[in-house]
């Protein structure tokens, strides 16, 4: 048993729902107890869909167990097919139905339904949401793809591509797709099929007609793309076009497979991010320490942008989906940091506190961790709340995506000129340390924000997952910017302490940590004013 308060991913059948909801004319018959319909509201509320997800739940109850749950399943399946008239259905079990062993696959097969019934085996006690989505999409493609389809010769027609991976409840999938279509248009590449988002089962049958595949979100599409590679000899573009550099590589890769000229796509004038990043107000971004956590794809892409396009220093990198741990390890090695692969949010909180970043890039969860630690933060990956399914166009991919990312990440930081003023006039009451960035209510007057949080936080020493390193958990109610600083056993002289307070709050945690590390390394028992400046010199870049 694993003790959990918060999970980064839902169970695998929620992944299957994401695929089903993304598609048209496909219905999911889910053998599940009463109550599992809660997952509907992820789609109707968080993603604000105006339609119910195409899922029929059997909603069996205790009194049904042991006699007619199989019958209930068959009735539900028959009724769903009659009512919704889908081109195909997918059938499977949720975690509880998995235990009662009704075998939805066999039951559906025995019914002789007028449409294909695609069985799903989603082991709920081993796997999670992303895996469930990938497996579902793969099974749909494998079952429905017309294997006898012979691709037309390339001569005299534009290249065709499938765009694979966008789903319901995907972080910015809707807008990423717009950007990718723009790029393909500029390259003269035709879109054979986008799937799962917007595709019907009938559309899927002609998936083999494309010349190649574009794997937009490997977490969801890679499994299917590998099968298509084997079955239809379709090569795949696996570069994820998040960031200017990655977008350029993506254009080059697509152009090569399409036999097209990349110049028109590369010459896109909507790309403002490189100039924004070079403009002098961005100079202060140099070497900002950033901690990155999310799904592997977004985390790896963010690390590249952070280092190569914004001049940040990556001080932590991790992901919650083990399936893509290899990519994270590789990227972490390039950044010279230890990879963090965990789905335990308390381990992430520890790592962030220990790394003392100046900016956190993560999921909804990291947003809350950062809030608690008083750190600026931007969201780069699912899971996300309703505000990250915005009304406005807000892609992550392509050149417009890079523009969005620049604004999103820089916004929570103090702007260059403002940082300068804060440092210069920090003795003035208008620029007191407690004032965060003037444009962000969430970070400014921290003195008033604290008391609201403290009773909750202080009353309860953090509870952790079974395997978390319990003893060295920092208390969440930090007195300063960084709770990790509390662990210090080193004594600070009054003078040094006063000097430390003069350092702006957003770098004070780092200064404290560096000074203490320096003092420990030097074997000093007490930190004097000089120690502070010795350490500053020691760590000078």
């Amino acid at each position: 048993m694993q003790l959990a308060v918060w999970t980064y991913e839902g169970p695998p059948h929620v992944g299957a729902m994401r695929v089903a909801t993304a598609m048209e004319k496909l219905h999911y018959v889910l053998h599940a107890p009463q109550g599992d319909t809660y997952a509907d509201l992820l789609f109707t509320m968080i993603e604000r869909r105006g339609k119910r997800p195409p899922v029929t739940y059997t909603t069996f109850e205790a009194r049904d167990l042991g006699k007619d749950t199989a019958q209930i399943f068959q009735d539900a399946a028959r009724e769903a097919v009659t009512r919704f008239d889908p081109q195909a259905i997918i059938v499977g079990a949720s975690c509880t139905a998995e235990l009662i062993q009704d075998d939805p696959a066999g039951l559906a097969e025995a019914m002789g339904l007028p449409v294909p019934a695609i069985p799903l085996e989603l082991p709920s006690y081993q796997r999670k949401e992303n895996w469930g989505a990938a497996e579902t999409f793969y099974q749909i493609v494998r079952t429905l793809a017309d294997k006898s389809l012979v691709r037309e010769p390339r001569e005299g027609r534009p290249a065709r591509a499938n765009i694979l991976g966008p789903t319901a409840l995907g972080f910015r999938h809707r807008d990423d797709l717009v950007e990718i279509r723009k790029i393909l248009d500029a390259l003269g590449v035709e879109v054979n099929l986008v799937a799962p988002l917007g595709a019907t089962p009938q559309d899927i049958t002609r998936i083999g007609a494309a010349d190649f595949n574009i794997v937009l979100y490997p977490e969801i599409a890679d499994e299917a793309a590998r099968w298509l590679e084997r079955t239809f000899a379709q090569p795949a573009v696996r570069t994820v076009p998040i960031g200017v550099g990655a977008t350029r590589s993506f254009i080059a890769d697509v152009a090569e497979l399409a036999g097209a000229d990349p110049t028109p796509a590369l010459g896109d004038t909507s790309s403002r991010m490189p100039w924004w990043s070079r403009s002098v107000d961005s100079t202060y971004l140099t070497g900002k320490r950033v901690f990155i956590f999310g799904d592997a794809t977004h985390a790896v892409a963010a690390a590249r942008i952070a280092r190569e396009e914004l001049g940040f220093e990556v001080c932590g990198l991790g992901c919650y989906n083990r399936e893509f741990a290899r990519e994270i390890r590789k990227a972490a090695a390039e950044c010279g940091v230890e990879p963090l692969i965990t789905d335990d949010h308390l381990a992430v909180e520890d790592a962030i506190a220990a790394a003392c970043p100046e900016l956190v890039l993560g999921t909804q969860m990291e947003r809350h961790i950062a809030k608690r630690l008083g750190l600026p933060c931007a969201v780069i990956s699912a899971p996300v709340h309703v505000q990250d399914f915005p009304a406005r166009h807000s892609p992550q991919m392509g050149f417009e995506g890079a523009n969005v990312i620049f604004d999103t990440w820089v916004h929570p930081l103090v702007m260059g000129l403002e940082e300068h003023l804060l440092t210069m006039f920090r003795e003035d009451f208008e620029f007191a340390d407690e004032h965060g960035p003037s444009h962000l209510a969430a970070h400014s007057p921290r003195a008033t924000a604290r008391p609201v949080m403290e009773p909750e936080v202080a009353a309860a020493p953090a509870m952790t997952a079974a395997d978390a390193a319990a003893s060295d958990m920092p208390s969440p109610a930090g007195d300063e910017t960084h709770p990790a600083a509390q662990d210090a056993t080193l004594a600070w002289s009054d003078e040094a302490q006063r000097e430390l307070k003069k350092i702006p709050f957003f770098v004070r945690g780092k200064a404290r940590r560096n000074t203490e590390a320096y003092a420990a390394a030097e074997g000093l028992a007490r930190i004097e004013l000089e120690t502070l400046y010795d350490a500053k010199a020691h760590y000078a870049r």
Partner: protein
Amino acid sequence: MSEAILLDGCSAPASAASAEVSARDARPVLRERGQREVFCGLTGIIWLHRKMQDAFFLVVGSRTCAHLLQSAAGVMIFAEPRFATAIMEERDLAGMVDAQDELDRVVNRLLERRPDIKTLFLVGSCPSEVIKLDLAKAAQRLGAVHMPRVRILNYSGSGIETTFTQGEDACLAALVPVMPALPAGAPKELLIVGSLPDIVEDQFLRLFAQMGIDKVGCLPARNARDLPAVGPNTRYLLAQPFLGETAMALEGRGAQRLDALFPFGAEGTTSWLRAAASEFGVDDALFESVIGPGRERARLALAKLRTQLEGKRISFLPDSQLEIPLARFLQDELGMEMVEIGTPYLHRAHLARELERFGPQVRLSEGQHVERQLDRVREDRPDITVCGLGLANPLEMEGLTTKWAIELVFSPIHGFEQAADLAELFARPLRRRDMLEV
């Protein structure tokens, strides 16, 4: 499942479904079975843990259970909440480890790390019920180890057994056996049963005190270790309509229920308070003088909202069992017209006085076949439909105004001072519909 349900699922008119209407009850109720779009009882934890501040709720379940709590709790999940899930894994199911040993390990670790916990509820889920993990035995075993510091209890909040607010019923019923005994010769005491927001609870306690009823206990108490006593001289008032099991457990200990309307609106609250006043011999003049001002305030505030709601047609989809008393309030005090009142479960005895209020044209339904019920909503086209968050936006997209039901469970809505707030919850979506020009 009957043929009727299978055959005309698409657009069964109410008359065709009347075949299912039970003849044995005084009042016809449409009973349906099919897909139910409801929460499971685990959701009760979200408000129960706020009420009982010394309690911790440990769900023994799957990742789905953890995901549900997270989805239902929204941002609350981040404030070191007093609930968590022990997620069962492959090895727990394959018998590679003894599930009871695993549970001991998790509980011991939890209690070590959270010394503030005084009561721990082991909450059963669908997976734990299906594999028949004996949580009662576990609670007993662990309780023996951790008493007196921590009392360990158990109940089931599984979807296969409980719907939404029934989770509270199961939890409170688990508390009844550990309530201290009120001896047979003791003076009569009043017990308010059902969790209420503190502000509402305090209002009621003040009113009872002014009437001279000063021995008033609350179940749940704000501290789960500080439970009121119960015995043959306990008279209890249900503050919530979903407490069938708890009432039975209290009756088992000799307590007697005071029959009343549920305390929604000026009238419901008056009836509820009067039931206690009569039982405790409060004289009429005193009763009137105590409740008069509150009742007048409620009537005054409701009069303003009545202009917005009068004549509006409303349907309830099943959710919390609050539907019937709320419908009575909206009909009698605000002049709304009931089209269909759906409830997940109908407790006829507890709701008898509420049910009398509805004319024969009001369609009552128990249970759910969500597709058919939605067909009825589309056909009826009520001015407002009360439903869950999984259905609300899709119905709005079809041009039907909705009020999402879960808010009725989380907001203070009982008593005189909240009567207008309650009405406002229904008036607001209608006003908004008229306001928006895009």
